[in-house]
């Protein structure tokens, strides 16, 4: 559906995006992950034709963005990082304008009403956009991208600046839209991407550093799994006991908490589940487990590892 080939963007000597290639299948939700300034927005701006690439091609559903801009652009719904809202208009007026601008062929009134219902701004349709809160503005931006039911949706950090409840709503919305649309959305928040996407692209300093199904990222592809523990008991005994468990690769004491308890990190081989073994082992030696956490924050570490190159400190590109 979306095919990006050798996409490069240079600003003077700086390569903001460096030879990126990937394809997204129809109906796939692709997460675009990377720290600020990694080139996410630049890439998205090139995919949508807002800026041109220095070299490389973007093909949407068979048509190339620079060769055939009109047709290609009509297949994309784009929500930029800052929603492009005319704040002096009411929500309905604005959506009517965008409807005309995009030359949507669907029945106007019904379609706009449907889109407003979908992003749940139908109660606010007569309000002037500048009086809306950030969350509602984001939804209006969303509605604008959805007009005309474009097959491809490009969303640039759609949840930034929203409160937790709104974030969950937007995520749900993206998930539900993923059934009908091909979606590329960017974020620098890992948990968000892994909660919503089928596939993750990690981008750093303009390059793709990882491409994986979201479940695979922490495990098979990138290293071992870990378990974080806080255990009450003698560290030496705890470490030696945990090390006896099959599949454990390494046990490390992170710190003493001073009250007889200590924090540990246990690395174990991928695919195994050692939580019960750890519990049983600790029960055997009479050291109560006060805290046990598996898995996910490892993703955070992996992310840092992947993206902490010899840093070009970027602002937004």
């Amino acid at each position, binding site marked *: 559906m979306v095919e990006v080939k050798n996409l490069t963007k240079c600003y003077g000597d700086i390569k903001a995006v460096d030879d990126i290639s990937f394809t997204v299948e129809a109906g796939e939700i692709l997460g675009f992950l990377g720290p600020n300034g990694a080139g996410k927005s630049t890439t998205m701006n090139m995919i949508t034709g807002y800026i041109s690439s220095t070299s490389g091609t973007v093909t949407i559903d068979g048509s190339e963005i620079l060769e055939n801009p009109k047709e290609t652009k009509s297949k994309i719904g784009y929500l930029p990082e800052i929603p492009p809202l*005319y*704040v002096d208009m009411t929500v309905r007026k604005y959506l009517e304008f965008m409807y005309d601008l995009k030359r949507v062929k669907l029945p106007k009134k019904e379609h706009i009403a449907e889109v407003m219902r979908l992003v749940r701004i139908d109660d606010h349709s007569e309000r002037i956009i500048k009086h809306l809160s950030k969350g509602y503005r984001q939804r209006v931006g969303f509605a604008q991208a959805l007009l005309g039911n474009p097959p491809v949706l490009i969303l640039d950090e759609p949840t930034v600046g929203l409160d937790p409840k709104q974030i969950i709503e937007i995520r749900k919305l993206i998930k539900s839209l993923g059934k009908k649309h091909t979606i590329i959305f960017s974020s620098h928040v890992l948990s968000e991407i892994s909660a919503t996407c089928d596939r993750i692209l990690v981008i750093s300093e303009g390059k793709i550093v990882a491409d994986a199904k979201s479940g695979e990222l922490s495990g098979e592809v990138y290293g071992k799994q870990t378990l974080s523990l806080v255990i009450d008991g003698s560290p030496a005994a705890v470490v030696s006991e945990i090390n006896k468990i099959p599949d454990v690769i390494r046990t490390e004491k992170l710190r003493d908490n001073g009250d007889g308890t200590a924090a540990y990190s246990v690395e174990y081989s991928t695919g195994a589940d050692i939580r019960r073994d750890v519990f049983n082992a600790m029960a055997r030696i009479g050291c109560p487990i006060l805290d046990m956490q598996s898995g996910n924050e490892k993703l955070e570490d992996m992310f840092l590892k992947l993206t902490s190159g010899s840093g070009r400190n970027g602002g937004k590109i």
Partner: protein
Amino acid sequence: MTAILKRELYAHFSSATAYVVLAVYFFFSGIFFNTYCVSYNTASLAGVFGNMFYIIMFIIPIITMKTFAEEKKQKTDQALLTSPAGLAEIVFGKFLGSFVLYALCCCIFLVYALVIAFFTTPDWAVILCTFLGILLLGASLIAINVFISSLTESMVVAAVVGMGAGLVISMTGYFATIIQVEWISSAIKKISFMDYYQNFTYGILNIVDVVFFLSVTVLFLFFTARVLERRRWS
């Protein structure tokens, strides 16, 4: 294009801009009408039209300053440039939006003509010709100011530079007289807006004048489209 035109008109008329511009324009044209026609007891609007040039020079940058500068600042240009609308359409829609407001301002002259018609028979040929002239002059100045607006992110800069450009344009005739070198002077005279405009106020409909203003308009709209295009490629 109609979408953008509608949006521009909405922006003008939902804010104070359109009303302030109309009021200022009506006020000054009224003063000139009173000074040149009512006080001198003449049916010729030539004096009014001649002086309106200076008002137009200040009004037009105010009308156009928002067109592209504000879009860029608010990042709403992303919506325009990623829509299926082409650059030409966007630029022309923006231009028309400003032009329609300006044309509404100019309609006040038809009212003055009607006032004159109460007392005597106005020279309709002269009035309509001048009306056309003032529209064409406005179109070319609007195109220049839309172009200036596309160069900056700040409305204030766009307006100030636009007014400066207007002043220079109004003074080209004067420059032509003080420059001693013959060919430079005659070249400058060839681009003097005032000279072309004045022909209209005499009631002379000259194809050269019409073509001059139309080509300036098209040229600067073309430049505007180039600026937007270049921004994508830089």
